[in-house]
């Protein structure tokens, strides 16, 4: 066997594979980043500049913030933001209370019918939201809650999956802690508040972040129950901007709105990167 030759081919092969790997990874990274670059770039181009470029340029010589001013004045983007923030905060807060209480009941309390309730509850995970949205739409219309925050929020609150996630986490806390707290005369509620919640904080934070992302991007339900611009969330707002805002053709201003809508979550992601990715790999899906 010619060892020297084998060594050299192996080394060359390894180098080629490595170069190829990096090239492919960089290619995909460009593909992912390009739309973001494009929206920021376009949002900084002047209206006249953009429309005069038959061949779109990959940079701009005269960046302007005019489009951002327009995005917040010509269309009620500020209102959409405010609506989305209210919607996100209230939905997440109510969801959290409901989830924590239910998870605690399933994880720690002994009551008749618990196992049956939990089985039924688990089977609810399989119900797709698309199937129930029809009746919910009818219900909310009947209750005359269209174009109200209540109509937006109430059907978005309960999430079987988050309850399940938190219940599993609560159940991992050793029983001894519960008994010790009982010995000290701590009530169930105080035990939940003072012991379980602090111990399970990472999971709770994960749930909060996932819910916030979900709320911020929600489109289908808000679109169904709101047709009054004053109650649009950012997704619906973007859609209405696309169809009627800025005289339809002011692309740079549209892109400014898109940047404004996308930025908060990207910042949130960069800050909580590990927590979000861990949370998603434990059970988030999109689509």
């Amino acid at each position, binding site marked *: 066997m010619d*060892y020297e030759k*084998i*060594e050299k081919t192996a080394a060359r092969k390894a180098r080629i594979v490595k170069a190829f790997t990096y090239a492919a990874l960089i290619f995909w990274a460009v593909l992912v980043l390009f739309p973001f670059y494009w929206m920021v770039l376009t949002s900084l181009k002047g209206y006249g500049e953009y429309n005069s470029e038959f061949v779109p340029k990959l940079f701009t010589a005269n960046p302007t913030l005019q489009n951002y001013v327009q995005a917040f004045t010509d269309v009620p983007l500020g209102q959409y933001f405010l609506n989305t923030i209210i919607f996100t905060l209230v939905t997440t807060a109510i969801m959290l209370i409901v989830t924590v209480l239910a998870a605690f009941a399933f994880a720690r309390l002994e009551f008749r019918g618990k196992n049956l309730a939990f089985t039924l509850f688990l089977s609810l995970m399989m119900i797709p939201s698309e199937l129930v949205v029809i009746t919910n739409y009818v219900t909310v219309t009947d209750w005359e809650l269209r174009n109200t925050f209540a109509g937006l929020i109430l059907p978005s609150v309960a999430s079987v999956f988050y309850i399940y996630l938190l219940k599993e986490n609560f159940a991992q806390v050793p029983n001894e802690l519960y008994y010790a707290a009982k010995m000290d005369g701590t009530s169930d509620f105080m035990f939940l508040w003072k012991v379980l919640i602090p111990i399970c904080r990472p999971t709770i934070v994960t749930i909060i972040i996932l819910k916030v992302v979900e709320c911020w991007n929600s489109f289908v339900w808000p679109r169904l129950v709101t047709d009054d611009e004053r109650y649009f969330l950012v997704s619906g707002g973007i859609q209405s901007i696309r169809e009627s805002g800025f005289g339809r053709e002011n692309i740079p201003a549209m892109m400014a709105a898109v940047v404004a809508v996308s930025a908060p979550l990207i910042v949130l992601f960069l800050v909580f990167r590990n927590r979000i990715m861990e949370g998603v790999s434990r059970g988030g899906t999109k689509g």
Partner: protein
Amino acid sequence: MKVTLQNLTKKFPNRNKKVKGDVIAVDDVSLEIPDGTLVGLLGPSGCGKSTTLNLLSGLLQPTEGKIFFGDDDVTRLPPEHRGVGLVFQNYALYPHRTVMGNICFPLENLKGEQKLTKQQMQEKALEVAKLVQIDGLMERKPNELSGGQQQRVAIARALVKMPRLLLLDEPLSNLDARLRLQTREEIRRIQRSTGITTIFVTHDQEEAMSISDLIIVMKDGAIHQVGKPQEIYDDPIDLFVATFLGTPPIHVFDANVKGEKLYIGGKAVLDVPGVADQDITAAIRPEGFELDENGAFEAELDRVEVMGRDVSVVCRHENCQADAIRAIIPSDAQVDTAKATVRFDLKPGKVYLFHKETGKRIRVEG
């Protein structure tokens, strides 16, 4: 096949940013392993023995130095061309394959003229399976096997391609005590019947002592001593080797030599001809104590533990670096437990002297 290491050095980049420089896992190791021997690579954890093994397998590349298999320089050769069999500490059996599938795995990679038909592969697999006595389990999946059986499958998989060199990484550490005894005999038997040069890594000196033809004692990336098990036990080259081998461990005393006599706690306990006057570290094997009412070595008696074949006298001495001394004496010896102290004579061959700072052995004449 003879294996030769020449000035082998492996450095890893330091992960701790506060400390500058690389971590040297293997430090200038030179060594020759004769053909057909069973070698135990022995040392405490982190001594570089697993790194050495991975350098031999080709999974790691040395920073400096050379490795020869026979007369071939294989230093930069990728693992698949080295013809080594490697048994991992956790066995690394593929959970989705049966025992047969696992053993056949290396054969499926053969190319060109060496390529085998499925029939031939299974015959070969069955052959080695018989050698390691698992031929009745061929259709099981790894998770249906006991630890000892998994170990055998792993060895069979390493042997099936008739390697020039067999490497075993901590082969017994995942087995319970009884299986460990049984399996180490098994490794010895398999090595004998195949005649393949075999190197196994272990931190358990008893394991290394019991089956190896040759033991290599490593510490901090460097080889301290190479030799037959009994040689290393009887004639340790330094304090580390002396303390690392033997159960119960050797007893280490702060002592001094004056006028060719060894003094422990101010009392002359042994003649040491040819040793200059100096402060010294003395080490005494547990079996180096001989009960004698007029013995020179006196210790505070604690208790006597009867262990059947022999008796261990547990006592204390202020100059001993350990809290308790365990002297092993024959069970027919009588110890007067009413007394506060016990006296011993020391057997000259079981007492070793080491340099106080360097720990190097100081030899006694005669």
